[in-house]
């Protein structure tokens, strides 16, 4: 990647340094191999044979050493964690009849909040700067004037959204419902009884010994938490597969009051869901799209500030909504730093780690005023999927990780086309990258999700096979129109 701010010489120095450090061990091997080769050539074939015969192999030695080798390799292979493959996934595409253009959203807002013009003004300003497009979708219950969020309409939204994604997943992977061993569903704000996972089991007639989990209340980062749960279970159960359903049901959570801090989610959250198939079977290795490399979860809930920054509460009039604190971005930045500190050593090449370490030591010992070295994550990953929580989140992360426009394109375009679909947004972003034909075998993807609590979770996937575009999926009919230029402010 060309470094625009520096001139040619330092760039080559940096490249040389990186090559040296990253291939250090390989470089060490070269003189050793060279020496052995020279020795062998010097000795000649008869001498080699003589050396070999002098080793006095007898049966006991042979059996013991081979037994030892077999034992060590068995222990090695048994203790290696099972590879978790992501066979395939599918994202829900809402019907065009659920579309909500800006004008309609503002009109409804004005008709419903007609006694609070200031709140309407605020919503309009938020919407203008939100980074959403005109094709995001809200569930049918929210289209009414005034909205009618009943439990029945919430359930029916859940059914449409989840079952469509799952049907698509079954079709793509050829999975039969009765073969599902583990089911993990995450939906933060809607948790009926029986649970959504029970709803799925009922609809598809899944097995009675299925291991099902329903995660609720865990925010927008719950998608990766579900992946973590599934991964841990797949370590314990051999030859199994797991289906993860990540969604957020909008119907019961539309805020109907007038507090400004609580109106923002109305502007951003939209309908969406994703269904993912994970497997630890070796036979799935050839057709799986990705392998899970790392998954790191960071929870900052021990600090009061982080705990309270995304808080669901009642306003003065009794309407329930989600209160977003003003220092949300700062807290997100802190959580991200924590997460990076853990994931950095796992993924960064040795050159970056050395630099980071020396900068850290330097700041601690020599001069605290040195600028902290931000490791270049672009060397560790080819693709980034940043949770499309809002334009501010993506801007902040782009700045702090020093990413280019192309790296965050998937996130921005997902926000534009689908809005903030909460935990499933990471999958829409991954789908975008695939639809653009940019995913090649061996590429590494970093998924970062933020959520209430405050949590920052990351997952690292390695692409298992090159994925050819055009792909079927949520982006199939509109990928040609993207990327679009999203203005700073859309004048309404």
């Amino acid at each position: 990647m060309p470094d625009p701010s520096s001139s040619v010489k330092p760039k080559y120095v940096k490249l040389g340094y990186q090559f040296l450090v990253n291939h250090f061990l390989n470089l060490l091997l070269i003189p050793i191999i060279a020496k052995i080769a020279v020795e062998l050539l010097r000795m000649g074939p008869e001498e080699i044979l003589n050396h070999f015969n002098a080793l006095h192999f007898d049966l006991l030695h042979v059996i013991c050493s081979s037994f030892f080798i077999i034992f060590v390799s068995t222990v090695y292979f048994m203790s290696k964690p099972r590879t978790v493959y992501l066979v395939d996934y599918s994202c829900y595409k809402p019907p065009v009849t659920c579309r909500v253009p800006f004008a309609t959203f503002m009109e409804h807002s004005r008709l419903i909040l007609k006694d609070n013009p200031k709140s309407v003004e605020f919503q309009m300003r938020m919407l203008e700067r939100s980074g959403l497009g005109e094709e995001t979708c809200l569930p049918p219950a929210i289209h009414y004037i005034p909205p009618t969020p009943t439990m029945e309409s919430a359930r029916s939204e859940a059914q449409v959204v989840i079952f469509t994604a799952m049907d698509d997943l079954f079709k793509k992977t050829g999975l039969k419902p009765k073969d599902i061993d583990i089911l993990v569903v995450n939906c933060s704000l809607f948790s009926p009884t029986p649970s959504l996972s029970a709803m799925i089991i009922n609809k598809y007639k899944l097995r009675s010994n299925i291991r099902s989990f329903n995660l609720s209340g865990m925010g927008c980062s719950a998608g990766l938490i579900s992946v973590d749960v599934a991964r841990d279970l797949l370590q314990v159960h051999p030859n199994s597969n797991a289906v993860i359903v990540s969604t957020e049901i909008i119907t019961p959570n539309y805020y109907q009051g007038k507090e400004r801090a609580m109106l923002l989610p109305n502007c951003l959250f939209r309908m969406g869901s994703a269904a993912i198939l994970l497997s630890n079977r070796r036979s799935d290795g050839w057709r799986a799209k990705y392998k899970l490399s790392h998954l790191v979860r960071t929870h900052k809930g021990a600090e009061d500030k982080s705990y309270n920054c995304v808080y669901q509460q009642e306003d003065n009039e009794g309407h329930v909504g989600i209160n977003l604190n003003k220092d949300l971005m700062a807290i997100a930045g802190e959580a991200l730093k924590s997460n990076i500190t853990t994931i950095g050593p796992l993924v960064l090449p040795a050159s970056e780690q050395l630099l980071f370490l020396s900068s850290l030591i330097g700041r601690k010992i020599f001069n605290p005023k040195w600028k902290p070295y931000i490791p270049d994550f672009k060397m560790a990953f080819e693709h980034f999927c940043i949770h499309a929580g809002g334009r501010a989140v993506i801007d902040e992360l782009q700045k702090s990780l020093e990413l280019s426009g192309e790296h965050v394109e998937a996130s921005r375009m997902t926000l534009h086309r689908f809005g903030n679909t909460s935990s499933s947004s990471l999958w829409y972003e991954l789908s975008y990258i695939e639809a653009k034909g940019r995913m090649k075998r061996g590429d590494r993807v970093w998924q970062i999700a933020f959520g209430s609590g405050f949590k920052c979770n990351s997952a690292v996937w390695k692409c298992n096979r090159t994925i050819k575009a055009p792909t079927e999926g949520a982006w199939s009919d509109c990928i040609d129109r993207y990327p679009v230029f999203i203005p700073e402010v859309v004048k309404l």
Partner: protein
Amino acid sequence: MEEDRVRFICKRTVVSTKSVEQGQLYRFSVFDHVMEPNHIRLVYYFRSSKTREPGEITKKLRESLAYTLNCYPIITGRLVKDIDGMDEKDDLNRQWKVKSNDGGMRMVEARATGTVEEWLRSVNREEELKLVHWEDMYHLPYYWSTFYVQVTEFDSGGLAIGLSCSHLLADSVCAMMFFRAWADLTLTRNMMAPPLFHSLPPRRFANHGMISNNQLLSHYIKSCALNAPPSNLTEDSIVTVTLLFPDPMVRAGESEPGLSTFEILAGLFWVCVSRAKGKTNEFVDMSLCVDVRKLLRLDQSYFGNCMVYHKVQYSKPFKTKDSLLLSHAAQDIHNATKRLDYDTVMDLIEWLSSNSNPISNGSDLVCTNLEDMGNSRPMMFEKDLILSHVSCYVEGPVAGGGQVIVLPSPSCEEPTSRVVMISLPRREMVKVVEDELLLSFSPVLLMDYTKQKNV
């Protein structure tokens, strides 16, 4: 006191399925501006032979309406009053325009008890208007939808769809064409007659002076003046009656050939209403509302106002027997309509571009010709929904002192049968429905006024 047969379920906005290019502005033609204060309400009734889940057909209609709206950006836009030209102080230049902002149109869902047939047998004007939702312009017109659709499912079978719109955007002809396009799209996924949006024919350049005795123009000059005579409906309420004329041409007997059914019916009502008002030596003032798309060489799919009002003068003697009176009246109507031609209407259009007042028909009787809106191809949304009745109301100053709207008859086999909706003050209506000449046509009473409350 019957309990309300119509239950309101919900109101929502339907948007087109494709997003609209932002920022486009549509201008109105002079015909549109002149019709501004009025609005139209149409109700279509469909019988059904199969039972459905409640809400099922409404959902389907909502989706097909979203697809239909892709072709009608003018309906999904919002009104803005923009300054035309550079002169800000000149109030004359502030005219309405439509800004295409993808706002969508309002849709109301409702349920009604009973079946469509039962309803039609016992409905009156007040109740029928409950089937078509309308909201007058808000004080902030940018958030006001200009079109409203109401879908009312009848509990025991059948459907009523109401469409109301501001007259500024559409006349009855293109509102009905919109409805037909929606039905076609729902049934066949194909719009047979997509709308055409363009301006009226341009000014003529040849040295045409104004035609000296352009009666159409003089009528408009009088009616568009700011101090045009207001309608003098004071204490008497307007009631509406719907009559079906099974074979008016036959009943008219020995009238001259070449007269259309509308002309005969308009003549009939001219005679009856004049008698009901107590005039023995003259006829009431009557204006005819006719569609001039063909005259102006425009396609029927032209979307926008294209109907003109022209006054008819009676030129023959009064003291004759009824049938001859009718025949003379119809003949005069025919002649007046024949005098309308391209140049007459173009004169009007050119004069209107410097006039900015809406038209008011005072207390005239207004007869509207919509008899050509029937079609040999039946209009239906689904194969089992058969159109059984259409009602049309026009409200506003253009409705004058009484209205007669001649519509095609969807259920009758005879091609010349017509459904006529008559709206008159109660006192006159009582006399008209008992008029001998009217009764000689054997009309069938479809909607009575007697149950209507005096309000």
